[in-house]
């Protein structure tokens, strides 16, 4: 199962949620993806690396669950770094 933050899980009881997914691709370098996660989400290096490896090994990682506006903001931020990121309705 993809890792999801506890804080985001709590929010899921309050409002409709969207999840931001980062997908694996063969071209973005692993240190770059780790760096982008640190910059966009303010994560520690360890956490950023865990999600990067999840993308690499499982093909995708759910990085946040948020309201539409916030999720859209994160997708745009990730795509500015040319990561393959999409926004989906949380199931």
């Amino acid at each position, binding site marked *: 199962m993809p890792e999801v933050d506890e804080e985001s899980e709590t929010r899921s009881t309050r409002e409709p949620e969207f999840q931001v*997914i980062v*997908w694996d691709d*063969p*071209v*973005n*370098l692993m*240190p*770059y993806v*780790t*760096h982008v996660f*640190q*910059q966009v989400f303010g994560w520690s*290096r360890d956490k950023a690396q865990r999600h990067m490896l999840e993308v690499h090994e499982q093909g995708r990682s759910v990085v946040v669950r948020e309201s539409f506006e916030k999720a*859209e903001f994160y*997708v*745009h931020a990730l*795509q*500015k*770094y*040319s990561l*393959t990121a*999409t*926004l*989906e*309705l949380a199931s």
Partner: protein
Amino acid sequence: MKLHLQDEEGASWLLSPGERNLLLTLFSRPTEPRQPARLSRDSEALEARCQADLAGELEQHRVALRSRLVALLGAARPFGSAEGEGAGWLLRLTVEDREGFLQALNELRLGAWEQLGRPHPPEVPPDLADNAPDILHWWTLEIASRFQGRLLSAVDPE
């Protein structure tokens, strides 16, 4: 490209004359056409809701980034014993500029990769001829990767 000084607001980087010229050349070229980024894979409704905004925003962002980087490289200060005669250049990047630099380098990598037909893995073929029609794209992919690696290894040392 070497890290010279780093502080809370950013860092100064030493560029050789060749590196500065190379970066100016890379960032001055027109952008390669990119496949449009998708907002959603599962929902057509979501995709339609924001696709136009996303495509426009990303394109504006790319153009502005390159313009900013060309201006920064143009404003780099001469550095070294023979100041002004090509000993080297000191490039000052704020944290925001550094991130823009990384994004622009990655944009170059992905544009070249797409032009090459999205090879997997994206590695230069060992038998690539000097006059191969796609050598410029391989060159761009490799050079941008090297600069990206230098920036990242200084910013996020292992």
